[in-house]
């Protein structure tokens, strides 16, 4: 009788731990998704600010924004609780680096077109959707 009770309590305890860990994982994943969404919004705003046809290139403002972006990505990578998600964030950082390099090269020569800005934003959205498993 006693052993039955002990077994039941052990089972209930195990179930409680399992349920609690699922809740924590979901909560953490939600936080991680929110970070990725925040990085997406930052990168889209970055493109909107600098991929403007005919706009004079402001190197100081551009470099400041790139530094801000680098800090955001590095922080996100360091804070990521899911180790499996770190390579995803590193990949997103790679996209940001490539976008920044291309934008600098084109904007500093006044070679931004509306189609370039649109396509860059399409790529950003697609990459982030894939990062979020959509």
């Amino acid at each position, binding site marked *: 009788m006693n052993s039955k009770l002990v077994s039941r309590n052990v089972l209930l305890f195990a179930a409680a731990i399992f349920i609690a860990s699922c809740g924590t994982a979901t909560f953490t994943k939600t936080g991680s998704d929110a970070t990725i969404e925040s990085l997406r919004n930052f990168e889209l705003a970055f493109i909107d600010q600098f991929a403007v046809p005919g706009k004079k290139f402001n190197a100081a403002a551009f470099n400041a924004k790139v530094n801000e972006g680098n800090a955001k990505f590095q922080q996100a990578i360091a804070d990521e609780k899911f180790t499996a998600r770190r390579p995803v964030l590193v990949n997103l950082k790679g996209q940001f680096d*490539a976008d920044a390099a*291309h934008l600098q*090269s084109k904007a500093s020569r006044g070679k931004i077109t509306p189609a*370039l800005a649109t*396509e860059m934003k399409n790529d950003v959205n697609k990459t982030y959707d*894939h990062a979020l498993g959509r």
Partner: protein
Amino acid sequence: MPSAGKPKRKKHKKSELDSALGQISDESIAATKEEFQDLLSQAKGDTSELIRQNAEELERRLVLLKKRKIDKEDFDFFVENQKRDLRVFIDSQPAQQQERAEKLTLRVLEIAAKVAIALI
């Protein structure tokens, strides 16, 4: 009841890219162009959404390049973006499907770079 007459052949409407590719007169890339058109057509009809999406993006960007709305630097930049994104997808495919996925994505992108030069 189905009609017993001549089978109706569905007319394939020529896309903007087909018309642009038709204008390429350089005979030295005729085989490359043919391979590109064949692979792109397979990719556009593939069951994988990502392969179809990649083909559609590539087609759209080749048309933008032809219309000079983007330049070759932009085109190459987008091709590299697409490759970076696709490598993750290909690695996640079962071994027996990797070769096909690679052919319909990375290979198409590689040939597209050659076709793009002839297009402008």
